[in-house]
């Protein structure tokens, strides 16, 4: 018993020793940030614009309790998430089926794909001013920009997924006279699914980046609005908290997609 305990202790100790160097670096950095940087040692930037760890903690507590700009912190997160999810969901619902059809039917693809291929390299942010002119600065404008971003990605990803279905699968389906429906749902879709999923995940990450950007320009609620508005009054610690939150939500969404992907595409990568 004592043997196993000492083994456990040894593992814990060795882990502790391994964690010690990076932790000490972080601790040192925090100490420098907290006590030295406010003394004005960074040339070219006013010390109060750099914030402090304790200031960030206080800002996080304040944002959590009182919210910001008349909205609770959670409402800001929810507003950004809602815009992203709406734009992304509409894009996925149209983009995936359309992409499958355009990838499967060469003639239809030849008509439409060059147009979408031309639009895709245009950064979504370049659409924002156009969309603002068209639709004003309401909810719809932001959802539309996200839709545009995600749609083009998902569509072209689905097309390429269908185009990379092995020719032998199509021959198998022709050999046994499968219906178009069965060919699409039993052969083409599952075979293209891994690539479709990658495009969905990328589109989601892009959408999240774009929602924040679109909120920087015109919004009364949302994480992009929060950091933009806080920065206008030089509340640097609140900006830090907002940026960290944007990152946290982004990582969480991506992990969620990875989890679904692993469940759904159990055969991939084996």
């Amino acid at each position, binding site marked *: 018993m004592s043997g196993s305990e000492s083994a456990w202790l040894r593992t814990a100790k060795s882990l502790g020793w391994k964690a010690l160097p990076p932790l000490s670096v972080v601790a040192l950095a925090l100490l420098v940030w907290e006590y030295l940087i406010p003394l004005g040692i960074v040339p070219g930037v006013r010390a109060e614009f750099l914030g402090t760890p304790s200031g960030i903690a206080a800002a996080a507590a304040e944002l959590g309790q009182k919210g910001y700009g008349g909205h609770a912190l959670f409402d800001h997160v929810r507003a950004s998430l809602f815009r992203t999810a709406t734009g992304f969901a509409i894009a996925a619902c149209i983009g995936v089926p359309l992409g499958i059809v355009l990838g499967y039917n060469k003639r239809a693809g030849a008509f439409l794909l060059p147009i979408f291929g031309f639009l895709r390299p245009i950064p979504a942010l370049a659409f924002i001013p156009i969309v603002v002119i068209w639709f004003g600065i309401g909810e719809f404008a932001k959802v539309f920009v996200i839709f545009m971003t995600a749609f083009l990605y998902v569509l072209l990803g689905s097309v390429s997924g269908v185009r990379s279905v*092995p020719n*032998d*699968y199509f*021959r*198998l389906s*022709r*050999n*046994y*006279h*499968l*219906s178009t429906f*069965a060919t699409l749902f*039993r*052969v083409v879709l*599952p*075979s293209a*699914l891994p690539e479709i999923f990658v495009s969905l995940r990328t589109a989601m990450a892009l959408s999240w980046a774009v929602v924040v950007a679109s909120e920087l320009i015109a919004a009364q609620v949302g994480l992009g609005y929060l950091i933009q508005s806080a920065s206008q009054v030089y509340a640097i610690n609140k900006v830090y908290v907002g940026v960290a939150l944007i990152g946290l939500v982004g990582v969480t969404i991506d992990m969620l997609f990875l989890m679904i992907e692993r469940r759904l595409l*159990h*055969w991939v990568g*084996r």
Partner: protein
Amino acid sequence: MSGGDPLSGGGPLSAQIELREVSKSFDTRGGGRLALDSVSFAVKPGETATVIGPTGCGKTTILNMVAGFTHPTAGRVLVDGREVTEPGPDRGFMFQRPTLLPWITVFDNVAFPCRYGHGLGRERSHAELEEAVMHYLDSVGLRDARDLHPHQMSGGMQSRAALARLLIAESSVLLMDEPFAALDAQTRLSMQQLLKHVVKSEGRRTVLFITHDVEEALLISDHVYLMSASPGRIIRHVEVPFGSREDYRDVVLRPEFTQLKHELIDQLERLVPR
């Protein structure tokens, strides 16, 4: 497996493959290039014929035309006396790679042609399908692998599963394009024996087989056709003299076997352009 197979449906399943002066040229940038030049041969019902020849001589092209995936430029391809116009479940195709669908289990892969195909003869009830799948999984030795996914199986097991999927559709013509070429020597030998055993014991399948391997051709077929390099022509027909029911271990020891094998290998080697 022997005698009255309860799953065969009773109808006459034997067919005949016939190529009459078939030529095929492909469009290339420099105009048409002749791939096959006036190829003629016939396979009788229940027989296994193998085409061997150097790479690029048009073996796959022949098989694709019988399957209905491509069409001859001149001449006629007949199955059951009718001109081939399109692919169909009366002719099953086994690809060089197993081509199992990786997202479903072995059982579902084998059931696939019956579940989603059309024109495979009679409809099967759920229970009949289950019975048929298990029957063919049994005959290829995969009864215990029914719930595995393709990526959980070895290459040899995947080939067996693909063979079971080929057999379950009850196609009277089996078209096989180097189906065992990617397997190791031992697995290949056991697949050859399995194919020969199944085909001979069912007695109602006509097989057109393609290979690079002279020994494989001699061990599994009744007839071997040797083709010349591009443009492909049939330059030799061998009626294999060893009883197709004989054990391969006895066959390979026969001096006639060794002699015929080396003769064909020599002939093949002289065909390969250096």
